[in-house]
């Protein structure tokens, strides 16, 4: 029990220090700029970023803005709006993430079948990630509208954009993971006359877990980014991406608000990534298995 608390603290403390440090840096720079009229102290010359209230609102203003209404007449506070938007974006990302993880895993298993398949597919998987998302987004919308099978909704296009970013790390790392068990383990399974499927389930998949967990964490972060970019790109409303854009239009008249949405989006990525990371405990072959059984 005590060890757990210590472990937890060891994980939280550096992160907290980093955040406090960043905030300190921001506030320090800002106050220095205000004090020196946007000049470097001693050496002189203009600061690279101006420190007035429009460009760099005070941290206290940003925090306070969370608890004020979005608009004078609006009943919702910025915090509520950001939470609602984040929840919406999270659901879209989740759908994209699950799809991407399944597709990535399927591709990894297919590529495992033979070197030829690996050589044939892997380069295309890598090429797929060099296509700019912004070029892809309108195409996905158009294609989605051509699908007769389901009643295509705009949010599905955004999920698909998230899928597109998600499958990549899973496919690449998944393949490496599936190939990771040493030859003698595979040969042992062969000597038992195990089928491919049995070897896959009993040796390769558990062996892939240490590779999959970081891949899924990467994929989780990517799926949030994909959703946010997708929302802005195709104009889906309701999510935190759209909120960033809407608030950015008031970047000058209400500067702290935009930062609220950006902080919200950042936290969303963090929460989703840690949630996916904690899936690790559930996975077979995980280091945390013993803790799980407690």
């Amino acid at each position, binding site marked *: 029990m005590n060890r757990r608390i210590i472990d937890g603290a060891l994980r939280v403390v550096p992160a907290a220090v980093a955040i406090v440090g960043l905030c300190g840096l921001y506030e320090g720079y800002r106050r220095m700029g205000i004090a020196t009229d946007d000049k470097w102290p001693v050496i002189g010359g203009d600061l690279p970023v*101006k420190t*007035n*209230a*429009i*460009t760099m609102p005070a941290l206290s203003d940003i925090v306070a803005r969370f608890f004020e209404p*979005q*608009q*004078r*007449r*609006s009943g*919702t506070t910025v915090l509520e*709006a950001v939470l609602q938007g984040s929840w*919406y974006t999270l*659901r*879209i990302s*989740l*759908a994209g993430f*699950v*799809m991407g*993880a*399944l597709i990535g895993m399927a591709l990894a298993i297919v590529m495992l079948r033979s070197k030829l398949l690996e050589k044939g597919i892997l380069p295309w998987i890598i090429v797929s990630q060099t296509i700019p998302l*912004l070029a892809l*987004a*309108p195409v996905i*919308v*158009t294609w989605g*509208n051509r699908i007769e099978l389901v009643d295509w*909704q705009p*949010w*599905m296009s955004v*999920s698909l954009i998230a899928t597109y970013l998600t499958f990549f790390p899973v496919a690449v790392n998944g393949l490496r993971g599936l190939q990771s068990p040493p030859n003698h383990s595979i040969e042992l399974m062969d000597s038992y006359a195990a089928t491919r499927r049995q070897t896959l*389930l*009993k040796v390769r*998949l*558990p062996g892939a877990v240490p590779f999959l967990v970081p891949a899924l964490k990467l994929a989780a972060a990517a799926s949030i980014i994909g959703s946010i970019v997708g*929302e*802005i*790109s*195709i*104009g*889906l*409303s*309701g999510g935190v991406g*759209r*909120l960033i*854009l*809407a608030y*950015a*239009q*008031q*970047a*000058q*008249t*209400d500067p702290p608000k935009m930062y609220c949405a950006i902080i919200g989006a950042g936290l969303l990525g963090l929460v989703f990534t840690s949630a996916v990371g904690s*899936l690790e405990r*559930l*996975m*077979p*072959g995980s280091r945390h298995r013993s803790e799980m059984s407690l």
Partner: protein
Amino acid sequence: MRDTRTSRWRLVLALLLSFALFAVACGDDSEDEGAGDGPSSDELTPISLQLQWFTQGQFCGYYAGIEQGYYADRGLDLTIIEGGVDIVPQTVVANGDADYAVSFTVRGLASRENDADLTQIAQVFQRSGTRQVSWADSGLNSPADWEGKKIGNWGFGNEFELLAAIRQAGLDPETDVELVQQQFDMVAITNRDIDAAMATIYNEYAQMLETVNPETGELIQPEELHVLDYNDLGVAMLQDALWADTNRLEEEEFRAQTVDFLAASMEGWIYCRDNLEEGVQIVLDNAPILGEGHQRWMINEVNNLIWPSPDGVGILDPDLYQQTIDVAVEFEILAGQPDEEATRSDLMEEALAQLEEKGLDVTGADYAPIDVEPTPGGE
């Protein structure tokens, strides 16, 4: 041991799948929120309009048309599709994913030149809304004063009025002026990082007036700014227009529906002209995230771009059309004069006849904008 492993994989898989189902189910919920407007949409013909940006006062007329039942009165059930950063409205129509689109005149014409079957069916904004804004104390009173200055523009096809004005002043846009890519906001000019910024009179200019000047601690006053109007220079280009698929307009049914769509849309714009406050409410009801003061300013200024419409609302002014094309051809956005079928006014004229029969004022000859007081933050 073997069993727990397999079952744990199953657990993970089951969790993932249930997450996915959950996410999909939730996604469906939120889709329903906007639906179900109007009484019974069973007998109504569903039609759609693709905007070029998100819901805001710029599109007040269409929202008012829905709220006031002008579309429903004509048997139409209009769905408005919001734009996005990468959405090209006229392409959406050309792909058949929307019936109508709001797009700038030249953008639609350029798509048509690239073999998209698009026809302009109405010219909603009669004037250009683009301005070039500088601080009054920098003394940039005409484009001739821009020599050697940092002049902001948005790019993406928004810069041609600016380039034409520079050339008209006898300057070379490539060498005599420092053209700066500007964000879609006014932060750079407010911070004096650039000397003049591009702004629409209905949006970004208002943002300036809604801003507390970091130097004075008070709202920026109109007297502190110099606003250059491209309409006055004779290089203005026409903007918000309505587009439809050329071939579909040949179908009798779609043609009749389009006349009704235009009549309802313009009736919506007439409503926004005569009922500014209600127009503000309608826009805010559709997009509660927006600031009330800013939308009041926007609708008032957009009204001023539409009204008066001397030949009737939605009718293309041939001289301004030619001016728009001339600038476009000069800067090679268009290869040449568009063909005759690129625009048609017969549908709009039939729609106007409908409106006149209802006794509505379709020219707004007496229209005058009100004075909207800028509010801090546009609230």
